[in-house]
């Protein structure tokens, strides 16, 4: 399925769904962080989950990737349930992610960071490593090749042997994306990839995300606050507020949805939130 046909059809056929989430709920003590959210992610699409701070977006991601166990609901990747899997098993199943607060391996250089991402796909095991078998050498070469390829893909080849912590902030985010892509995912979840980036970097990120979908054929789901990015990039948007889904649809549908306006405007006491509202409008006019 090509990107264009995806964008053209408003609601993709069910058969093209890669990730299907039904009634996903997480209750922390007395707080319902995510309340019965449904989401269908079409194959090879770019979809976004947006919402004000504390809307439960990251909790939602953490349930999909196995970090939190859902209180109820189901998550199916390509028709296979992910419930009860550990995070590393979810990664092996084909979902990779990045983190809102960057979590790189500080004492490793960029290449090694990405090589760790290849861990679950390498065939060599403990004995191979000890005996330096043929399989070990093949695996190491594979890890290195994939790492270099991914670093080149996100444009960080020149930082290959630089400690991850020494990279500029925006590049650290790209490195996290490269690391996630090295796991050969079907679906990649990006948690606020544009946070802390300047407009120029955000533009680069936008084209990078498009290339992840177009060149690698990986479905992308992102959480993002930058409305301009979300509105121009996403084919489908889901809006969360207080843990519940309040709207979903194509960017122009969501943009004009009164509930969404209210969710962002209604809590507009803080100046930052007005800023977001302006961004929301800015995105609308763009």
């Amino acid at each position, binding site marked *: 399925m090509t990107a264009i046909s995806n964008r053209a059809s408003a609601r993709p056929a069910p058969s093209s769904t890669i990730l299907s989430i039904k009634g996903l709920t997480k209750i922390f003590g007395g707080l319902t962080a995510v309340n019965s959210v449904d989401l269908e992610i079409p194959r090879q699409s770019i979809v976004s989950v947006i919402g004000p701070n504390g809307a439960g977006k990251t909790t939602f991601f953490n349930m999909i*990737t196995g*970090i939190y*166990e859902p209180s109820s609901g189901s998550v199916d990747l390509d028709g296979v*349930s992910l*419930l*009860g899997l*550990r*995070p*590393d*098993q979810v*990664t*092996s199943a084909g979902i*990779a*992610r990045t*983190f809102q*607060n*960057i*979590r*790189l*391996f*500080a*004492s*490793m*250089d960029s290449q*090694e960071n990405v*090589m*760790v*991402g*290849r*861990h*679950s796909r390498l065939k*060599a095991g*403990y004995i*191979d*490593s*000890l005996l330096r078998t043929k399989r070990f050498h093949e695996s*190491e070469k594979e*890890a*290195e090749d994939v790492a270099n390829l991914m670093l080149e893909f996100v444009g960080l080849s*020149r*930082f*290959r*042997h*630089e*400690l991850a*912590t*020494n*990279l*500029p*902030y*925006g590049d650290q985010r790209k490195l996290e994306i490269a*690391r*996630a892509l090295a*796991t050969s995912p079907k679906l990649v979840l990006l948690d606020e990839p544009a*946070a*802390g*980036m*300047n407009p*120029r*970097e955000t533009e680069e990120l936008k084209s990078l995300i498009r290339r992840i979908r177009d060149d690698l054929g990986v479905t992308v789901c992102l959480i993002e606050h930058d409305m301009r990015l979300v509105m121009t990039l996403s084919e489908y948007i889901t809006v969360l507020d207080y843990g519940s889904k309040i709207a979903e649809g194509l960017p122009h549908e969501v943009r004009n949805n009164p509930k969404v306006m209210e969710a962002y405007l209604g809590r507009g006491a803080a100046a930052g939130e007005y800023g977001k509202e302006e961004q929301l409008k800015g995105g609308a006019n763009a």
Partner: protein
Amino acid sequence: MTAIRPGSQPPVAAPDRSVALIVLAVISSALLLISQESSWLARLPSALANFLKNPLVASLVLTFFLANLLFAYRWKASLWAKLLVGGLSLFLILPWAGRDNTSVLDLAIQIGIFAALSLGLNIVVGLAGLLDLGYIAFFAVGAYTWGIFGSGQIGKVLTYFKDNSANNGPVVAVGGLVLLIVTALSLRAINRVGGKRTPVASWAFLLAALGLVIGVTLLVRGLVMLAAANAAGLTSGVNPNFFWLFLILAIAAAASVGVLIGLPVLKLKGDYLAIITLGLGEVIRVLANNLSTYTNGSQGITPIGSASVPWFNSLAGAIGFTPDQYSLFFLYFVVLIIIAVIILANMRLDRSKIGRAWIAIREDEIAAQAMGVPLVQTKLIAFATGASFAGIMGVIFAAKQGFISPESFILNQSISVLSMVVLGGLGSIPGVILGAAVVTILNISLLPSLGEATASLNLPPQVNPAQLQRLVFGGILVAMMLFRPEGLLPSVRQRRMMHEDDDPSGNMTPQDSLAGELKPENAAEVYSPGVATRADNERGGGTQ
């Protein structure tokens, strides 16, 4: 292979020191041999001979000699010079010096044992970042594995069972075997069930695991009962040639205990893990103390045999060792071989996906798991690998001492090994070996000899070094950590992390200052994409 790896390179600009290395090696070897050979000492003028006989001087000479190995490793010199100095020192001079004074060989074996322990703990603490304060327990497991079988203790155990149990050995053994098979199969079946595990399944799993442990215990007990008839033939332990088999068995036993201890506790981390491993380490020691049927309790097991290789003994005899020194001479070379194997295994694991996974877990568990690293499995591998190094050296320890008791495996020993690892440099293979050597030499040779040397001075006890050994040792540790917190020979990783900002050339590139300030809050403001990177010019070895 990636380019940046732990390990040590000599400084880039250092001059070639092959000649200096060889000269130093010759001087120190000569000094060592003279000071250890009574027949040569006798020919010297008495003043000089007495000076060399002074315990402190002798100890310093030995330290100087061992330092040559470090120089050979660190200095920039021709490979042949390094190999010559290293090989001759280890294989010729040291055994030769140990001929008259076996304490030299004893010290060398002790350094070897602690180096192996440090390398094992280094995997757990240095690479995987799991603080383990009960590490010595695995050493105890290895030591008791050979201690019980290599001495008359096994005969005593069998005699005990012969006298004290009804003749139902076959029944117990078969019962244990059946229970073992049934529970193992049910564990497998429960594990096969996919998806989320129900509480009932969890309880069933626990029950089956308990049954498995009971099954193994019953099986072993049954087998012991069956073997009890042979008690008479084992009054002095099994055939010493089984030593080799027990080296392997000790690895298996220690690794299994590592996994058993690791399984329930590895969900914890940091301080909690440290305390719980401390407790479990003590549990092993208390077991050794209280299972007196098997371990002879606090009185310990003695004498413990050691393997002997006839041609090796005749070699030792030919170069002047007396028969009671054969085993020490033999064990010295066994230790050398084992250390070489351990270093090789350690390096290979470090530079593999296992090593990367360990470091990833140390840096960030959540991110590591999200990248597909199975946490529990990877941590268990670290625990088991570290434990197996300790297990094999436990056998050597038991064979060398000829005596083991729970006293040898107290908490202090765990702390001591940990201090070697930290002192040498967390995560650095040459570092922890050096750390083990330094601490062992200080504890066994230098500090006691300092006490001996000053014993005749009649100093008041408050300032007498003999009384203050631990204080001096503590002071050295504190000073080391203050001035070299990254360790004596830090790993490349550690050095890069700790000294990233002291650029030796002193010129900060714009990126240097940026990297420090780049916090999530102000990143967008301070970072400008136009600034050139220092990625390329740093390859010249800026921070190396």
